[in-house]
């Protein structure tokens, strides 16, 4: 684990680092983030305005031909929404349906799902997904330690989709949801 830099006393970074979720809000700094843990303990955060709902974990109906990071569709109210397994997408965990591989990974993913009790329904205006998370936390800017810096300490596969990191007890990757969902969405071949 790399050593952590000392806490910064600089003002929150905005604009190019945190703002560019989309064309319409290029220079906007989110008012709040929702932070949560993935199955391997990696902590991530998304702009709270894109969190449409938090629901109990729902069973997923597998989607034919979908990649491993889309375990299936879950019912959110009356609507079927794809589940996005961020741990699998980032290469931090094996898909539960894969079975084999590292037993500890599969067990950890299964335990995590059982322990989740919560799914975040994310909607960036183009794509809707539901994703599991534990230790949900709402972090307001600029108070509450919601200061950001370029991604340094999170795994590189996560940093690729991160706009920055939040200060805190441990690094929290701020995900660029638009880039993430565009990269993770399923496509017909």
């Amino acid at each position, binding site marked *: 684990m790399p050593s952590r830099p000392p806490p910064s006393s600089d003002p929150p970074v905005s604009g190019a680092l945190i703002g560019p979720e989309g064309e319409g809000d290029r220079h906007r700094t989110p008012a709040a983030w*929702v932070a949560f843990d993935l199955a391997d303990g990696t902590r991530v955060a998304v702009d709270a*305005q894109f*969190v*449409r*709902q*938090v*629901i109990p974990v729902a*069973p997923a*109906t*597998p*989607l*034919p*031909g*979908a990649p491993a990071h889309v375990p*299936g*569709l879950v*019912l959110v*109210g*009356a*609507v*079927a*929404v*794809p589940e996005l397994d961020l741990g699998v997408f980032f290469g931090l965990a094996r898909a*539960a*349906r894969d079975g084999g591989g590292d037993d500890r990974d599969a067990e950890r993913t299964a335990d995590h799902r059982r322990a989740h*009790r*919560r799914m*975040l329904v994310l*909607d960036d*205006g*183009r*794509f*809707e997904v539901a994703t599991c998370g*534990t*230790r*949900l*936390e*709402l972090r307001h800017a600029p108070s509450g330690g919601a200061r950001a810096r370029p991604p340094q300490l999170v795994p590189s596969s996560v940093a690729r989709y991160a706009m920055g990191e939040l200060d805190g007890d441990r690094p929290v990757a701020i995900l660029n949801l638009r880039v993430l969902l565009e990269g993770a*969405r*399923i*496509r*017909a*071949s």
Partner: protein
Amino acid sequence: MPRDDDAGPLAPRPRSGHGPLEEKRGRQDEGANRRMSDAGFDLGGGVAWCAGRDHPGSWDLAVPLSAVRRIGDLDPGPGAPASDDGETSQPWLAPPWRSSFVGTTEAVRHYLEVHWGGRRGFLGVPAKVEVSAAPDLMATPAPRWVATYLHALGFVGLVRRDARVAYVVAPAALFGATW
């Protein structure tokens, strides 16, 4: 500070900035029904609800009853079952998702005889088949990008019965035809 067992401010809430949620949901509902209608599928006709194989990656399939001529058990042994007019060499249908639904050939226990556009074929089903009438079924909208993905695979849309979801196949797609 809200933790895992206290969603607090994360509870469902109205969202600003992307238009009224209910309005969007309404459009999705209309879209789901319109796609089914365009494909000539009316929930009023019911479906043959085909349970997927007993496997974590399995899924259920709904075949419009208007296209199902017969539902039968598969006798052990190779070859397709005979159609009801005595012909014996009807083709097994092989949509692109067949292996995902059926698994191994040995897993097929039942079949549907499906007719469409003067053609017929057999669709293997690994687990049980039930006829679901319209009152038990709910057309289930999905986000447009998911619907587009499903459309490319030959599915008209989704229906749910209780908490289970099934993919509704367009009969034409079972025969490899555009629809």
